């Protein structure tokens, strides 16, 4: 099977969806790049190169470079979704949600319910997230929790290229507003990805590892740090269920609860600030629904309660690291 990067997998999904369905459009800042300039078009293909090649293939009517105008991009996508198109809007950095949040949580998320089921909003909002690029406080945040809490939105955060393609094709087919969170650290990671189209269902967790001593749930990029730690522990004879929910809304509660009921121990890892984050949410669900199974306190490993700092040493300290994950795991395992 061919090996593709996370970037290539999403690009291929977009190509295939656009080829199959003429109502799929892509819009956003620099999705092609070079509009109105003297040089060449498709100069960027999206800030991370994910939409490269779409403009030459599908033309300006369906691959739309916008001004820097986040509220209008998301509003336009929502209005187009209500009236017959399937827009995939790119927001570049998840940090920019603040500029256009009304159009996401008051508009797109609510159309279907607020209008008695008579409107649909089949749109995807792609955004990049995650620290580690030394990009500072306004280009590094993972704000997945802010959209996960909104009824009407679905939230997808793939951790590998295979999942990214299948989940993107599902997101475009879905009739709700889907927030597609791409961790920028993952763009150059690769794995086997089939050439043909396939979808992966929302709300079905993936088990990266299976074991009986501990349950680890991780969201987005920290998953790869978790796997390194889990493999290290495996060499010591400690086996873990390592669960990637893949979508935070809907959330596969059942997979997490079943695992915790077996292992009795839970560590949850995300790269969000610690209050009201996904790790907190999953912890509360387990505390509420699987309390009797727990044999140790739940531990969360998250980012620090501060803006993301610029200085590399500080940013590294801000992010959850393998050592933090390992230490939390050992604490939970040693608790009697």
């Amino acid at each position, binding site marked *: 099977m061919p090996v593709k990067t996370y970037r290539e997998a999403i690009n291929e999904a977009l190509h295939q969806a656009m080829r199959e369905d003429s*109502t799929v*459009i892509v819009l956003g800042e620099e999705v092609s790049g070079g509009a109105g300039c003297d040089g060449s078009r498709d100069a960027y293909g999206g800030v991370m190169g994910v939409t490269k090649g779409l403009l030459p293939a599908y033309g300006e*009517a*369906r691959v*739309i470079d*916008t*001004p820097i*105008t*986040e*509220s*209008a*991009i*998301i*509003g*336009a*996508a*929502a*209005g*187009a*979704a*209500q*009236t*017959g*198109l399937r*827009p995939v809007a790119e927001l570049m950095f998840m940090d920019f949600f603040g500029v256009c949040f*009304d*159009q996401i949580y*008051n*508009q797109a998320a609510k*159309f*279907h*319910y*607020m*209008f*008695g*089921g*008579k*409107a*649909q*909003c089949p749109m995807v909002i792609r955004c990049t997230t995650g620290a580690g690029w030394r990009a500072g406080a306004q280009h590094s945040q993972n704000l997945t929790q802010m959209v996960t809490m909104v*009824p*009407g939105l*679905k939230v997808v955060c793939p951790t590998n290229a295979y999942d990214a393609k299948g989940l993107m094709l599902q997101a475009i087919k*879905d*009739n*709700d507003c889907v927030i597609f969170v791409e961790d920028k650290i993952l763009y150059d990671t690769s794995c086997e990805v089939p050439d043909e189209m396939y979808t992966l*269902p*929302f*709300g079905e967790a993936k088990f990266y590892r299976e074991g009986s001593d501990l349950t680890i749930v991780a969201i987005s990029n920290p998953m790869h740090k978790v796997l390194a730690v889990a493999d290290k522990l495996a060499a010591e004879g400690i086996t873990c269920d390592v669960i990637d929910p893949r979508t935070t809304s*809907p959330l596969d509660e059942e997979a997490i609860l079943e695992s915790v009921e077996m292992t009795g121990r839970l560590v949850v890892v995300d790269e969000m600030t610690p209050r009201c984050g996904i790790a907190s949410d999953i912890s509360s669900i387990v505390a509420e629904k699987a309390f009797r199974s727990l044999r140790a306190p739940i531990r969360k490993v998250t980012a620090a309660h501060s803006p993301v700092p610029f200085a590399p040493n500080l940013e590294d300290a801000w992010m959850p690291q393998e050592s933090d994950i390992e230490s939390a795991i050992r604490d939970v395992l040693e608790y009697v």
Partner: protein
Amino acid sequence: MSTDTNTLLKPKSTEQVLDSEQFLKAYRSMRTIRAFEDRISEQFMKGNIPGFLHLYSGQEAVAAGLCLLLNDDDYVISTHRGHGHCIAKGADVVAMMKEIMAKQGGLCDGKGGSMHIADFDKGMLGANAIVGGGPPIIVGAALSAKTLGTDRVGVAFGGDGSSNQGTTFEAMNLAVVLKLPAIFLFENNGYGEGTHARYAVGSKDIASRAQGFGMPAYQVDGTDLFAVYETCREAVAHCRAGKGPVTIEATVPRFKGHFEGDPQAYRGEKEVETLMKEQDCLVMARARAVKEKLVKAKDLDRIDQEVAELIDEATQAALAAPAPEDSELLKNVYSSDY
């Protein structure tokens, strides 16, 4: 029409622009809006309507004049003061009354209410309770029209209040950049809630501000149905011809408070009384049409009677209808599996 963006535009002619059939249709629409608003005001005071109400009374000529030019598959998006737009676009008045009373059979199954009333079969994409929330969405509807190659237009109603919102600026700019068939129709009723437009609108008017985005802009007396119709006729033709967006600023009176129950201490002595006496679009439209022998007074009287009966019927039906079932709570949060 001219696409000159340096001069504010006025309609070319207000002479005999409406034929009698069109006038009767517009008059029925205006009368229905007025009677509907009067009735729900009364029902609100009786405690039969939950929540907030923002009434359109005084602004009827704008919705009615524009919607004469639109088809069911053209799009409008409205504001928190949206009943008039909904009625003019052709929504069923009985289902509207049920919605506003939070009853089964309401346009949105009782989930939306006055501030989120919508009728997608009529291209009415919803009242919107976020001031400035609608313009970006109508850009999307206009984008659909352009991308799918239909000749539909999208109209975003707004007020002097929404004219100051950043979302509105972004929407106007994007509509120009993508040359979309969108109309930004600002009904300047003088008030954003309890603050006057002469304080809150930094430019001397809204239309010239829109011109700054590079689109033609009209100013029109929104109490004059004939002038509204002619202005909108030119604007809609401009959009359907693929020439890009247009802004219209229509000056209108607000006969009611920001919301029902608003004591309106901020309004001048006898201000509302004078506006209702001197700037009632229904009275003016009727007087002109009869004077110019476009229609007969008795035909208008008959419409008044029919509308009164319809509003009675809608009120009785809505009062009698059951509230939504409790089991509806979690229905339609998502449209695909969750």
